[in-house]
């Protein structure tokens, strides 16, 4: 028996959230700040420093960071071989990367959630089919599958998302299936069945709440990995079309100039590394925090 705590200086949900945030380790604050910075930059950046993939400016080719351009502006991260501003390219790439990652994870997560619930809760042949399909797909390198799909579908942002979502849903389905399986035969679920609760009610009120925390952890980790995958596809020319900026394609442009104009590849590369590492840290923290929750 645990008596309720009464000496709570900051009552309510907001209070609890503030207190938990303050209690987090420094790396969490760093990661959280970094992710916030990137999101804001990705949303607002292209409005302030617009990027036009078609516009070229031959006089401004391959200028190092900090050089003043012919139009009077300063290229803080230098320019590429056709005279485009790298900062603008990185910010626009940020937006592409975020969009692709978020939409992919939402789509793959939803499909995975549905499949995982079906497989974990109902078991039987549904589980057999879904799990075998997942096994087969996981046995095949996911980037290779994405390359294949993207190559067939042709370069467009939608196709990148489809290709990546197809390769990612299995991971979510497995996480959800595991949690659903663990809760399915718990006594309090049986007690709802005895009460006459329908499958829908049990799924929504009993199984789903236990699946969400691990799903959230998996989604966080997958956002980072999807960003890398998108960059990889674009690097290979199978990602977003040339009219849209992507870190992958910018890095590809810089590949031939690594010795002379290192900033072309380094700037998007560093951005990608920073954001993926930060998201990874957040994922770990979420995992730690959700462990006692999954016990419930």
């Amino acid at each position, binding site marked *: 028996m*645990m*008596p309720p705590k009464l000496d709570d200086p900051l009552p309510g949900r907001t209070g609890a959230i503030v207190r938990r945030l303050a209690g987090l380790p420094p790396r969490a604050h760093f990661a959280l700040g970094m992710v916030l910075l990137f999101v804001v930059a990705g949303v607002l950046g292209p409005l302030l420093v617009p990027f036009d993939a078609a516009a070229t400016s031959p006089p401004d080719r391959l200028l190092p960071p900090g050089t003043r351009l012919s139009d009077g502006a300063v290229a803080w991260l230098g320019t590429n071989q056709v005279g485009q501003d790298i900062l603008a390219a990185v910010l626009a790439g940020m937006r592409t990367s975020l969009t692709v990652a978020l939409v992919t994870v939402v789509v793959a997560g939803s499909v995975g959630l549905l499949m995982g619930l079906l497989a974990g809760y109902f078991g039987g042949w549904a589980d057999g089919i879904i799990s075998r399909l997942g096994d087969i797909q996981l046995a095949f390198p996911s980037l290779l599958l994405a390359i294949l799909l993207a190559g067939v579908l042709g370069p467009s942002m939608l196709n990148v998302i489809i290709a990546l979502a197809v390769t990612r849903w299995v991971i979510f389905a497995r996480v959800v299936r595991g949690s659903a399986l663990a809760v399915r035969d718990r006594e*309090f679920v*049986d*007690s*709802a069945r*005895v*009460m*006459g609760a329908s499958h829908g009610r049990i799924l929504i009120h009993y199984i789903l709440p236990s699946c969400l925390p691990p799903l959230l952890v998996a989604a966080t980790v997958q956002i980072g990995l999807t960003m890398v995958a998108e960059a990889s596809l674009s690097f290979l020319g199978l990602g977003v079309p040339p009219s849209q900026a992507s870190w992958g394609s910018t890095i590809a442009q810089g590949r031939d100039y690594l010795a002379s104009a290192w900033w072309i590849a380094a700037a998007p590369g560093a951005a990608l590394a920073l954001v993926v590492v930060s998201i990874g840290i957040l994922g770990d923290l979420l995992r730690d925090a959700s462990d006692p929750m999954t016990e419930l």
Partner: protein
Amino acid sequence: MSTPALAESRTRDGDGPPLLELVDLVTAYRLRGGLGRSGAEVRAVAGVSLDVRAGETVGLVGESGCGKSTIARTIVGLVRPSSGQVLFEGRDLAALPARELRGLRQDIQLVFQDPYASLNPRMTIAALIKEAWRIHPGIVPRDRWDQEVRSLLDRVGLRPEHADRYPHQFSGGQRQRISIARALAVRPRLIICDEAVSALDVSVRAQILNLLDELRRDLGVAYLFISHDLGVVHHICDRVAVMYLGKIVEIGSKESVYLRPSHPYTQALLSAAPSLDDWRDGGRREIVLSGDVPSPLNPPSGCRFRTRCRLAQDRCRDEEPTLLDRGTGHPVACHFPETDPS
């Protein structure tokens, strides 16, 4: 083999139609086999016939693995019977369309053994009780829900102002009261108690037993009371069925079974059950069974108890005894029942 037992119990207490009737019920589990093979079949319940009349309390006693909990899970529909019937007021639950079955579910409720595991930890007490009314609309009009929650909590001896607390804020005995309140919310006519007081301390157990007694008196609810504790069953039940390895070996009124146990297993159980008077040496015969219960995967031929029975003869190996009144006052599944075990 079901008829004699049923006929006997019917004639005992008038002709009221049984609320619940099990007819030659068999529930089997399939064990998980190796690669590509389906596993062996375990008949946890191997042909049980039993009835419970309105307002009556029937005890089902036996040791772990005898199938008594499987019977509970079969009746409430958590597992499917392999053969035989579960009849509620004469209607076969397996043959009912889903919609009607859902309605019938509210008539039979189950109280589990572990009050720590059987309540959803994410729901408040009020939400747990109201859920019953969400599932079965029409029992209580929505505008009276809060009032009804308070009166149910009061009914089971909890403070109504605790309705907004979560299960983990209560002790084991209090949680069992919550489970009972939740079961009562749908106004059931039969409550199956599966070892419902076994996890509780002595003093709290008495509180819950008294509560169950009160509810029967006030609401006329019937119980199928499953327990390994012979003292508790003696206290609360009108009739008792003793199970061994998936079958009923003896069934009858409480007085008859406890005073004149006729099956050697019942006798051994009663003599082994600890009681407050055990310190007075002598006066009672102690029958200590040798060995362990055989695996239900591979039950002995003939009488299932013969491997541990002190009376076993060749006939017990060859021929399975049916549940019959052989002059002991109630049905016994034994070829050589004793009328007076003193």
